């Protein structure tokens, strides 16, 4: 009974949060000072076309009817059309989202794998020079703006040494959009382009799990059961991984979920610096161009991803920690 109702309740929370985000966006774009119609019509249009569009969008209708229609559209994922390209926003999203996912996922996985391992080791070998230098590196990685690191990497390895491409996801002439997504992903050219942004982004991500894991290890190592493990004659490595790290890992799950809220921001900046055609960069471009439908649509996708991943993390924690009571 406990587990099932836990999942149900969390799912409900998920839906409510999504609804709340949508509502806030609605309010933001509509109730802000300025031309309320500008979110749907662009200034390039003629008076006639504008009036037509306004009428067809029902912008003359009272606010609550607009709101209901907004929610309806949201549920069926109808985000309207881009001002810039007249493409349906969903198409825009479909084009750019996979690119972001590839970049973020690669960076995230590598960063967490390395970060957690280094965190375990630096917590275990407390007070050593290794620990000190690891911590300083982690702090520096989080203190220097990630896009700055990207700039420096681009400058040294791109402009000066010419080892990495200066921008983009694929080189001109490799048939980017014509080839299938998976064909592209597994090409050397793609990997060559992915390398720098993924490393820079990964470097940025790595600091957080490293530091959290280290603190968590230090806490766990002060617990009594570690003494009992030693008294049992277990090998040091067994204690470090099977007992200490396993317990220390639990807070990382929640920490990872929180980190995602900041991770998206990082990917937005990296995509901008490396001109990686992802959804983050697209959102920024849309915002700067006042292409509200695209800005709105991409933002909702980003927020939904965070909310959904938080939900998954919640469930994962409940599964990993036998002490969690499903209340």
């Amino acid at each position: 009974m406990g587990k099932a109702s836990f999942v149900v309740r969390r799912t409900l929370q998920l839906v409510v949060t999504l609804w709340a985000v949508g509502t806030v966006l609605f309010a933001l774009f509509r109730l802000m000072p300025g031309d309320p119609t500008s979110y749907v019509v662009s200034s390039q249009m003629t008076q006639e076309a504008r009036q037509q569009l306004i009428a067809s969008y029902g912008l003359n209708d009272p606010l609550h009817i607009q709101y209901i229609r907004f929610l309806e559209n949201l549920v069926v994922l109808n985000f309207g059309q881009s001002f810039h390209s007249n493409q349906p926003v969903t198409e825009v999203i479909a084009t750019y989202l996979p690119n972001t996912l590839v970049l973020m996922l690669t960076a995230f996985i590598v960063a967490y794998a390395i970060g957690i391992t280094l965190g375990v080791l630096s917590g275990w070998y407390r007070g050593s020079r290794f620990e000190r230098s690891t911590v300083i590196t982690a702090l520096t990685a989080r203190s220097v703006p990630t896009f700055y690191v990207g700039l420096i990497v681009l400058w040294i390895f791109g402009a000066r040494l010419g080892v990495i491409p200066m921008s983009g996801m694929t080189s001109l002439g490799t048939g980017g959009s014509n080839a299938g997504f998976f064909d592209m992903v597994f090409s050397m050219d793609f990997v060559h382009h992915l390398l720098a942004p993924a490393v820079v982004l990964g470097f940025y991500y790595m600091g957080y799990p490293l530091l959290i894991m280290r603190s968590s290890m230090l806490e766990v190592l002060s617990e009594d059961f570690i003494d009992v493990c030693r008294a049992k004659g277990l090998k040091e490595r067994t204690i470090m991984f099977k007992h200490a790290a396993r317990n220390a890992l639990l807070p990382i799950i929640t920490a990872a979920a929180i980190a995602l809220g900041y991770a998206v921001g990082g990917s937005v900046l990296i995509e901008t610096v490396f001109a990686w055609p992802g959804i983050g960069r697209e959102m920024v471009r849309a915002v700067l161009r006042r292409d509200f439908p695209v800005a709105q649509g991409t933002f909702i996708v980003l927020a939904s991803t965070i909310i959904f991943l938080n939900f998954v993390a919640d469930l994962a924690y409940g599964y990993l920690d036998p002490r969690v009571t499903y209340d």
Partner: protein
Amino acid sequence: MAQEEQSSGSIFTDLDDGSTDTEVNKWQRTFRLWQETLREHWGMLTDELSVKLSMLTVAGFVLIAIFAPYIATHQPLQRQYQGDDGILIDKWVEPSLLGANSEYLLGTTAEGFDIFSQLVYGTRAALMVGLIAAVFTAGIGTLVGLVAGYYGGKVDDALMRLVDFLYGMPLLPTVIVLVAVLGPNLWNIILALIVLQWRSTARVIRSQSLSLRERPFVKAAEVAGAGDWHIISRHLAPNVLPMTFLYGSFGIAWAILAEAGVSFIGLGDPNTVSWGTMLQASRAYSALSFGAWWWFVPPGICIGLLVISGFLIGRGYEEITNPKLQ
């Protein structure tokens, strides 16, 4: 083991003496309690070398910000012209620090602005954003956390739902959207940051508040009839103070990084120079390809120094809040 000394500044001195003629104001007592707590923290903090260095760094930047007009060689957003005629703009001039024959320490930008002066005046923007956002982030977060943890029940539920919602919003994209809607200027950036960032402080302070609430000394105060605000300000607050300052310090760091990111995107304040806008300009004018590294390298270093100082001071507080890490 030494016994505790009866310090003359003890908040209970008047009670111990038995002298109840001079009614020491309740608020005076609370104030002195806070004073002592802060003094104790200061001692523990400054024990750590990294914290001392960080505080010096921050102090250094603060001084630069205050005395910017005396330190900078030119006005940051004033186009510089060759010679005295004022016709040709002095663009892309190389830095005199690197041996070039110019009057500009770090050279000029593509638009003819003095980079060194921009760097100096940039401290003002960074510190303003960092400190204001940090104070409000930690302040609002602590207040909400204390109230939610202390009152519990429906109040706690409602406040935490709000916090959960805020956690669902990705930080940078939301700030970007807010700044785009409100208009790109420094105050809007600060406001957008505050609106989101208090969420983490609130959560942590709330959980501390929840556990503190169950402690015997709080229960005793309740039984003795102490008012809610008395308990919160006198018993709970001083105990969560280290956490508040921890998040305040981290808040400075996060705020400066966020402003840099927003400015880099192009939504920075066009009328103010910040290190972020410097980086944005350098990219807009392809300083990278031209190899004018003196333009884009220094701002990032400044950001890095100030931010890591914020983090190190925060970590100093981490050791106070969690002795197992010492």
